């Protein structure tokens, strides 16, 4: 595949990989925890960008797939002693399947109606899981410590999860790039611009959208499975946290809607900024107010996001910055 040899992709992958490996080489467990969350957000934001930035469908409740993957993976690891890698893959498959089945009706909705429906789906899953005793109900599940023994102990298990999340992040970025550069991606962008015209030009939007939705559900589910495995417990609240979902949209906007690097930069900036505001004594109280104000400024004045803005500045950047 020609796209896979593109320097625009390799540079991004190498930078992400290099940063992600710092805590492993320099042995900084605290940094590793931070980067785990950052990689997870990159996965979430990039996935949201595939359905929202490329296709124009604002999936507000996208976190539902993170939760579905998390619960599926956790359940399999816990009750069947399945290896976490396999459990995560099955979680991804389940999330994609659910996205596929729900996508068929839901993706017929346009604009605000679709956004609302995805919120409804997330809330429905959250409240449903709260009622299922086999999944621990409202209090959730706690991983038996012995499960980690199969991986050589808790420390090793959490290292494995970290390598896993790096891999998933790199895969998500690659998928995002390949879609953007493919014929399929062109169809998505045509749908985003004007679905009726896309149809007149020969594109079957229903099929393209539902496939995209299933793809964009896969990666967050893997991330969810790894995250909750590492944490050792899972609860409905954190698994299906609508607020997180909206933050992912913010990251996409911040970095640049419809670009490959945008969600990565967006996740990085957002997470760093929040970290700074929360820990800095002068700002910690006001961190929500400040983040909100910054978001508003971006929404009102820098609609293209960081990467989008850079791409507008010169043809060279437009060529190499995806």
């Amino acid at each position: 595949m020609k796209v896979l040899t593109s320097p625009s992709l390799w540079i991004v992958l190498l930078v992400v990989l290099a940063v992600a490996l710092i805590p492993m080489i320099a042995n900084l467990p605290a940094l590793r925890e931070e980067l785990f969350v950052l990689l997870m957000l990159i996965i979430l934001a990039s996935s949201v960008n595939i359905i929202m930035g490329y296709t124009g469908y604002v999936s507000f409740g996208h976190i539902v797939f993170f939760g579905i993957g998390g619960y599926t993976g956790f359940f399999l690891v816990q009750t069947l002693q399945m290896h976490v890698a396999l459990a995560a893959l099955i979680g991804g498959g389940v999330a994609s399947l659910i996205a596929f089945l729900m996508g068929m009706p839901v993706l017929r909705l346009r604009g605000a109606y679709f956004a609302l429906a995805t919120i409804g789906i997330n809330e429905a899953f959250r409240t449903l899981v709260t009622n299922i005793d086999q999944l621990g109900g409202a209090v959730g599940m706690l991983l038996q410590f012995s499960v980690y023994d199969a991986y050589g102990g808790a420390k090793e298990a959490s290292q494995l999860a970290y390598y896993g999340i790096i891999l998933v992040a790199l895969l998500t970025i690659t998928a995002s790039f390949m879609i953007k550069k493919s014929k399929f991606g062109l169809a998505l962008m045509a749908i985003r611009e004007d679905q009726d015209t896309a149809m007149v030009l020969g594109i079957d939007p229903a099929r393209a959208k539902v496939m995209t939705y299933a793809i964009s559900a896969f990666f967050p589910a893997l991330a969810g499975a790894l995250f909750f495995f590492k944490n050792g417990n899972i609860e409905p609240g954190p698994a299906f946290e609508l607020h997180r979902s909206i933050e992912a949209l913010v990251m996409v906007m911040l970095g640049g809607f419809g670009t490959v690097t945008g969600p990565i930069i967006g996740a990085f900036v957002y997470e760093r900024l929040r970290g700074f505001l929360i820990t800095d004594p002068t700002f910690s109280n006001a961190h929500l107010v400040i983040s909100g104000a910054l978001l508003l400024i971006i929404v009102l004045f820098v609609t293209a996001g960081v990467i989008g803005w850079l791409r507008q500045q010169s043809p060279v950047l437009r060529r190499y910055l995806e």
Partner: protein
Amino acid sequence: MNFEVLIASSIDGLTLGFVFGLMAMGLTLIFGVMKVINLGHGPFIVMGMFAVLVLSQNLGINPYVALPIVIVLGLVTGIVTYFVAVHRVINAPELTTLLATFSVNMMLIGALTILFTTSPRGLSLELPSFRAGTITVLGTRVVAVLIASLVTGALYAFLYRTHTGKSIRAVANNRAAAELMGINSSWILALSFGIGTVLAMVAGSLLATLFGFTVLSGGGLETKSFVIVVLGGLGNPTGALLGGIIIGLLESITTIFMPVSYVPVFEFVVFILILLFRPNGILGAR
């Protein structure tokens, strides 16, 4: 099944439903007029709660007497919010306005947390209850229904009887045409946002007279408003009122038949089904 339990639950649900309806009308009015889903709706509701709290506890004003002040506060908050956060992007794709109003949500929740922390609050309000046989209706509920009805009536009178109200409906119907007729749409949009905010805040104040609350109570009430609004048809105030009553009844009556924790599952499934099969709400045509 006990008949009296059913009656009592129905009355409970009905009274709560009126307040829910009022709350959702705020959201649906804004959507109806400018096609914006206001993600600041939850914090507006919470602002109403804390406004009565401060006015009654710190300034000693009776919560009900404080309502006119809440209304003025809501109007100002809404209009300012519109011009600061919404006006510039009013014609942008929905994602933009969703995020703009979400930023308002973040700022308000942040500010309210600084001012009040997230610890639980409540109003201590003593009103006589009404009794018939074994059925008791709390006085606060009766007053809440009366006020909710009064505000709804005033809203309709305003929308259908006054010149400004008619302008709002004209803008909701077709903004471009309304502008051609000489209506200043910016001002009308700002005013509508203000009225939507007033409805949310008054509903919040009334809810504060019924239940305990925190700065974070808005999230759940906001999603509930979404459900109600979709049930009644996005942009349809009468539908929202009806939707509120349905949800209020549903939440109180279904608890007799199913575990309380299943009620929200049921609600959200209905919500999705309505979006799919009756996108104009239960009242609207297909």
